[in-house]
């Protein structure tokens, strides 16, 4: 899915959205959005009055007609915004749906049977066992019960490199819609047709099952409350104006009401929510609900596995330390030679370090008539016999034993080096040539570059990072301080993880974690935001409330940012919407009472031409601002980890102050256009 990037405003989507905007005028759909529902009712009322005036041949039709049109436009623009957001989701969904069509499954009667019958994929039930061979599409979500195969999952992940799926272990889950490209597997179906992973994904990106998230609900209540308050203010104004000798027409009161109620945020609210989900999907993360996305923005503590997330997961050579009388080049040479045949990641890292940092040329061992001594778990030593030299490297005690010495009788410098490496959480390897010790190789868990900065950014966001590792506390502490995490759980078992999450939650914190193994499932389920890796087991994927299709655990950080962005966009546009009202009052109130109190013209600070043009301009501005803000609603306002207070100051300045000033300018410009065109 990442392969196809949909531009922010795609022509085809816009066309479809324009149509959908009209369809969404259907009352049953409109009523979901109280602000827009009120706007539509008001527009209808004004239209009916217009028709009555048309029938009775009253004057002022041009003004009332334009007003009615712009009120309808306000509703249509809001529908349009929602339709665009949905359209972008649908485009993703269509791409997904294409992979699912017309799949046939090879149904086996039992797991040890090899005969199969063809059955349509959407007729499979949970528990069915199917055979998937090279070239076949996996017909449903399931678990591999036999065999091993490489699977192309690009249909769901967009990643074309095939992955291995095999029975047992943590790589046993397969997803419907993916393609087996070599070998065969037997799969037990684990999802009902229509509720498979792909189906849920389609439903989510389409926004079909969209329910209001908790914050969205709270905001809707606030907006409905504001609408009610303005309804009271506007309706009572009729009475107060009557006292003052002004009979206000329903049409102008309707205009005032619609400009005052928070139509801007009301119109864009659902578009913001859909766009937030869509952003997440473009990051290749599927959330099972909008609630989870919102919760991600609230996360206080992030639980991260050390291996693969914080470190590369393998111990890599970091330094060569010689014994007295030798140079580090001697150690490098010996280490290189002894590791030539060592195909473990550690061995390769030693070769890389020796050749890279120390510029050792790659010796052509074959030509030297060398004998390789491969690594074995018994000896814990590997090495090379080369023209009379027998160079060995391996665990310190094993090497010492082979050289016939004890740790006490070695050089003090050697002892110190071994000790300090162990203390820092690294692994020391000794290098010897025959009976002579040459030096020590420092193997350590290498922290991924840039990860420290990411943790610093998280800290600035107010999120605590916790590293989970099976290492002993000494090693864990060393890596924790190097990576810059706030806390760590050493020698962690799945139970430890679960207990830690529960303890943090009891303190009122929201926890996010990611995991892939079956033993992660309880913790994933317990965490407020559980991101399962796509490569993980079915159990893990079921337990989490998000699935990362790229299986990249650091993505939790982006997920959190998207959650925050979602709330910020809503909050900022709400502020903008409310701040706008000040200017609208200054435009409309003097216009309403110009006949009774010409002196109130003092409030007409924008110097709008006529009362009609003032009211019309305010209504037009109110409608156009929805259109103008659609790109912002879809993109979301940018999040920067600069701390809550700084963030608020920035957003207040832009959307609060901006919201106060912008309509004064906008309404004035529209007024000039309206009067120039003699529309009012």
């Amino acid at each position, binding site marked *: 899915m990442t392969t196809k990037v949909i531009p922010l405003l795609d022509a085809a989507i816009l066309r479809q959205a324009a149509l959908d905007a009209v369809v969404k005028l259907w009352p049953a759909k409109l009523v979901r959005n109280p602000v827009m529902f009120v706007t539509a009712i008001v527009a209808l009322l004004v239209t009916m009055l217009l028709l009555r005036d048309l029938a009775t041949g009253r004057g002022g039709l041009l003004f009332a007609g334009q007003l009615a049109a712009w009120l309808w436009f306000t509703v249509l623009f809001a529908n349009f915004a929602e339709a665009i957001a949905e359209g972008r989701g649908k485009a993703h969904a269509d791409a997904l749906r294409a992979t699912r069509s017309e799949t046939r499954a090879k149904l086996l009667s039992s797991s040890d049977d090899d005969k199969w019958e063809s059955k349509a994929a959407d007729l499979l039930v949970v528990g069915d066992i199917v055979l998937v061979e090279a070239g076949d599409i996996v017909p449903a979500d399931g678990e591999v019960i036999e065999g091993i195969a490489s699977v192309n999952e690009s249909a769901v992940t967009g990643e074309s490199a095939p992955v291995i799926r095999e029975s047992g272990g943590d790589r046993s889950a397969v997803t419907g819609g993916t393609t087996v490209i070599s070998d065969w597997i037997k799969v037990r179906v684990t999802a009902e047709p229509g509720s498979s992973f792909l189906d849920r994904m389609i439903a989510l990106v389409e926004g079909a099952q969209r329910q209001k998230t908790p914050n969205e609900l709270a905001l809707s209540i606030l907006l409905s409350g504001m609408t009610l308050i303005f309804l009271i203010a506007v309706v009572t104004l009729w009475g107060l104006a009557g006292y003052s000798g002004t009979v206000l027409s329903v049409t102008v009161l309707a205009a005032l009401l619609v400009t005052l109620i928070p139509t801007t945020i009301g119109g864009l609210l659902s578009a913001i929510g859909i766009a937030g989900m869509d952003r997440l999907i473009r990051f290749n993360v599927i959330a099972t609900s909008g609630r989870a996305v919102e919760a991600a923005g609230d996360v206080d503590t992030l639980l991260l596995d050390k291996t693969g997330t914080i470190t590369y997961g393998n111990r890599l050579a970091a330094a060569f330390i010689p014994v007295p009388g030798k140079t580090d080049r001697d150690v490098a040479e010996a280490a290189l030679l002894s590791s030539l045949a060592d195909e473990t990641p550690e061995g390769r890292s030693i070769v890389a370090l020796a050749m890279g940092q120390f510029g050792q040329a790659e010796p052509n061992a074959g030509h030297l008539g060398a004998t390789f001594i491969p690594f074995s778990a018994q000896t814990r030593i590997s090495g090379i016999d080369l023209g009379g030299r027998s160079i060995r490297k391996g665990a310190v005690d094993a090497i010492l034993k082979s050289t016939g010495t004890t740790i006490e009788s070695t050089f003090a410098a050697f002892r110190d080096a071994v000790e300090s490496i162990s203390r820092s959480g690294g692994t020391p390897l000794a290098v010897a040539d025959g009976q002579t010790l040459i030096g020590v190789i420092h193997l350590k868990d290498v922290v991924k570059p840039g990860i420290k900065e990411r943790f610093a950014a998280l800290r600035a*966001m107010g999120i605590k990072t916790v590293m989970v590792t099976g290492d002993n506390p000494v090693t864990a502490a060393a890596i924790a301080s190097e990576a810059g995490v706030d806390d760590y759980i050493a020698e962690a078992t799945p139970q430890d993880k679960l207990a830690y999450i529960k303890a943090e939650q009891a303190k009122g914190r929201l926890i996010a974690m990611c995991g892939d193994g079956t033993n992660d499932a309880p913790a994933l389920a317990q965490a407020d935001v559980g991101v399962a890796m796509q490569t993980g087991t079915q159990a893990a994927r079921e337990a989490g409330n998000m699935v990362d299709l790229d299986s990249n655990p650091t993505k939790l950080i982006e997920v959190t940012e998207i959650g925050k962005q979602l709330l910020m966009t809503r*909050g900022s546009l709400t502020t903008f919407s409310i701040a706008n009202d000040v200017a609208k009052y200054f435009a409309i109130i003097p216009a309403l009472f110009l006949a009774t109190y010409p002196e109130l013209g003092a409030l007409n600070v924008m110097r709008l031409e006529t009362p009609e043009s003032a009211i019309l301009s305010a209504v037009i501005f109110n409608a156009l601002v929805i259109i103008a803000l659609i790109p912002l609603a879809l993109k979301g306002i940018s999040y920067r980890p600069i701390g809550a207070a700084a963030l608020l100051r920035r957003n207040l300045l832009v959307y609060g102050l901006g919201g106060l000033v912008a309509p004064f300018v906008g309404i004035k410009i529209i007024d000039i256009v309206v009067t120039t065109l003699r529309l009012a």
Partner: protein
Amino acid sequence: MTIFGWLQIAVVLGAVLLCAWPLGLYMARVFSGEKTPISPLVRPIERAFYAASGIRPEKEQSWLSYTLAMLTFNALGFLILYVLLRLQGNLPLNPQGFSGVAPDLAFNTAMSFVTNTNWQAYGGETTMSHLVQMAGLAVQNFLSAATGIALAIAVTRAFARSSAQTLGNFWVDMTRATLYVLLPLSVLLAIAFVLSGMPQTLAGSVEATTLEGAKQTIALGPVASQEAIKQLGTNGGGFFNANAAHPFENPNAWTNMLSIWSMLLISTALTFTFGRMVGDGHQGVALLIAMYTLLIAATGVVYWAETSGNRLLTQAGVEATAGNMEGKEVRFGQALSALYVVATTALSCGAVNTMHDSLTPLGGLVPMFMIQLGEILPGGVGSGLYGMIVVAILTVFIAGLMVGRTPEYLGKKIEAREMKLAILALLVLPMAILGFSAISAMMPKALESLANAGPHGLSEILYAFSSAAGNNGSAFAGLNANTPWYNTTLGLSMLLGRFAYVVPVMALAGAVAAKKKVPASGGTFPTDSGLFVGLLIGVILILGGLQYFPALALGPIVEHVLMHAGKTF
């Protein structure tokens, strides 16, 4: 405006802050059930009350039973006062021999005193017997204030506690508010008032012979003791019709300063109580700064508007240096009159030492707007604090969204339920104020009560309903409110403004108390920062402004523009 004037204002406000701080911390001890210096004296009395009424003080109540207890208690208070008023003619301690009060006035008055409004559609010295003044009105002065304090303490506990089901015991909070706070302070203040020349007697009136030889009846009574609780409890109901402008109710500059000090004292102190009880003093101070910034700014506007005077009067040859002195007492001066005007309206006190009707249009807009902002600056005793908390929740909600987190206030997440209840409370005032004003403005019968035509008349109506719904009780005057229509609708406004407001607020407190207290993190928006105070002020002003701007534009604002154009009404 003069430096000396501002100095007077600064001295009074400084004295309030200086005394409110220890009082606030003292109240925090009182309501947490801790020992206080006066405990040895008061504790036995308190225990006796519980024993006599069968209350188990250690048994706490849920928000619902707390609220029901409060409503029952106030309903009873209303009933007793209503009966007292109706039957006053047949009851003792009635030296002037006043007859029973008419049903609509009795309803209005009883409601007025139970809701801490103290709107007076009557002249005190010519309507109420000493028994009603002391056993009816003064008792409600204590009880309505104590109710307010108890409610504020319950709401405070909601934020102080984590995953709690109870908010305290209403009867205990009431008793303690009365015995530990209101009574001792009232006694001290009454003595101070008597010492500075206020009458305190059970005699009805004295006959005096004027220099012209005419007979004059000068009303007297237990003024000082009434005054003390009237100010301390932000009640505002005067003993005399002229309220604090009367030479017996407010004899000199000293009593005037003491009056302002005493009406601001408890509401201000409660912000410190709030800070102490939620475990973070800065939180209370933040609310206090927001309150006082607006209070001082408003005082500045009134002071400026009044000293700028009225151009029309200057043209008519009136000496302009003193500004607009119509309706003001020379013994108080411009500065302390301005402070009194703003304090009494920002406080829901409603005592007046100046005729608000005689203020310049802009000077009159300010007190009206202060009431419409919800009586939270710092507001009535107790009601000001919980009103402010509702606005703070609204502010936090918008601010919280803008920093990308589920909004939280004092570690409590603000979600849909809290929002719903806060909005429900916020709807009450505009509905009562604008609704009844608009109806009255269109009713010929209601318009007969007006003394002035044009926008000033509209201001009079608007002010009356603002005052009633805001539980303020001050009058703009110029409106004859003692008619069945106004007595009934204003009484209803008071009822709505007090109880329809506080029930959702208590439900909100219940919801908040049940929530887990979330520890603050770097992503939490700090609610004790200058930024929050600024935002809170912005929300108060914009929210209030947006609701009442059209109404105010047709009242004081247009009157101001017209005055400059030379038109009067």
